[in-house]
């Protein structure tokens, strides 16, 4: 079966900012290394590595609103697009991505429908 594309949306609960020990430079090195290793492992699955999402606007029929004024319990922090044989496979790849899921943050994996 041909692969499908999946949109991975990283979400964090509003007001939940993890305040643990700050990582030491050596730990930063390790985290960076783990991310790069993940990226190399799944290079064939990564369609768009995406990125973090900054502040923005919400466009409605009533006009253009500040993003911040939209009521939400979760904020979307970042996205990426994966290709995989199934949603389960895509979810597993996202799960293995270092630093994406943790206390108060999750990833939603959604199939991108194509005609």
């Amino acid at each position, binding site marked *: 079966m041909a692969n499908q594309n999946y949109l991975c949306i990283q979400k964090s609960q509003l007001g939940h900012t993890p305040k643990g020990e*700050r*990582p*030491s*430079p*050596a730990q*930063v*090195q390790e*985290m*960076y*290394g783990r*991310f*790069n290793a993940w*990226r190399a492992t799944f290079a064939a699955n990564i369609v768009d*590595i*995406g*990125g*973090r999402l900054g502040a923005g606007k919400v466009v409605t029929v009533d006009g253009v609103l500040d993003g911040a004024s939209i009521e939400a319990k979760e904020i979307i922090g*970042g996205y*990426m697009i994966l290709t995989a044989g199934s949603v389960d496979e895509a979810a597993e790849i996202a799960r293995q991505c270092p*630093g994406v899921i943790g206390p108060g943050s999750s990833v939603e994996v959604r199939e991108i429908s194509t005609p």
Partner: protein
Amino acid sequence: MSTPGDVDHFFRHEYGHLVALLSHRFGVQHISAIEDAAQAALMKALERWPTGGEPRNASAWLFSVARNEFLAQMRQGNDRRRILARYPVDLEPVPDKVPADIAIERMQDDLLRMLFVCCDAAIPRESQIVLALKTLCGFDIPEIALRLFASPASIYKRLSRARSVLRELSPGLVNLNEGEYPARVSSVCSVLYALFSEGYLSLKADAAIRRDLCDEALRLSGVLANHPAGELPEVFALMALMHFHLARLPGRQDGDGGLLLLGEQDRTLWDRTMIEQGLSWLALSAEGNQFTRYHAEAGIAAEHCLAKTFEETRWDRVLECYAILEQFNPSPLNRLNRAVAIAEAFGPAAALEDLAGFSPPGWLARSYIWAAVMADLHGRLGDAKIASYRARALAIAPSHATRKLLSRRLLRSTG
């Protein structure tokens, strides 16, 4: 230039560069805020680089972020007015595209300056080492505690003592003039030597952890030796000494992590390139008329490195170096080491005779090293005195690996 992905200690060393650069620019009395800013810059890199890609000049990127972070902190703090008055230009937001304005030489200058700051005589030696490991090498408190076999609380205390000295330095003293360097070079050398010894002599840690400290000491000594302020025979001899010791590290352990005696080591495992480099530094150190303890110690280490086998060691030359060392740096441990060399050159009886007139200080007399050497010398003579020394050495050996080595060595002697 190095990139974050392919260099093992990129972030640790960048942290050291950031602290050095910001300290020079804004004054080392802000050390705590500066360290926070350096940390924040690394976090931002971790957040941005994986998806956005690494900037072409990663160091300049980090510096720009850390500087902005520092200034943002200062805007909120009490030092605001003073800092703003001195650095109005820096308040302009720094564009995302950073000019590569931090030259490598400049970075090395600042790193060296920070090293001299860490070695301020007003800071106790044990705090100097912790401060250097924290600010220049980028280890955090638990990582330093692990490497120095101390509790995190005690490391924190040592660090606080150093920081409080730095905070109280008058601004004039904060940025050392290069004219003040010569007076401090010896002190800097002895901090680097202590740092190296922590790694090299420690029998308690695993090899990787030990190697870290040695590598950091060598890296910082290299910064000093390659800087005009450090072009001195003393510094070159220290570099030679470190190379000779590091060259032999791969031979010190067997496949199971057990320690090997000098005579048991496979000398083909020794790092020839390191030895060659050591010899070059030793040759450089011989130019000029300064002679230091590092020259004598490097001389001893060089003899070991150059001997094809243990039996071929030129013990007479080793003893000459010990005699010189005795003049420059008389120490009970050197005295004991010399006796070990005498035993190889002239036999155990001569060594015991040499030690007969020597009463070791309490710390040495109580140490496993003293017991082990005495047991070995008596054992080689077939003397019954071995028994009590051997029992003591085995009882107080600091690690499993040491105990194993001692029992192998001492149990084959009868007595």
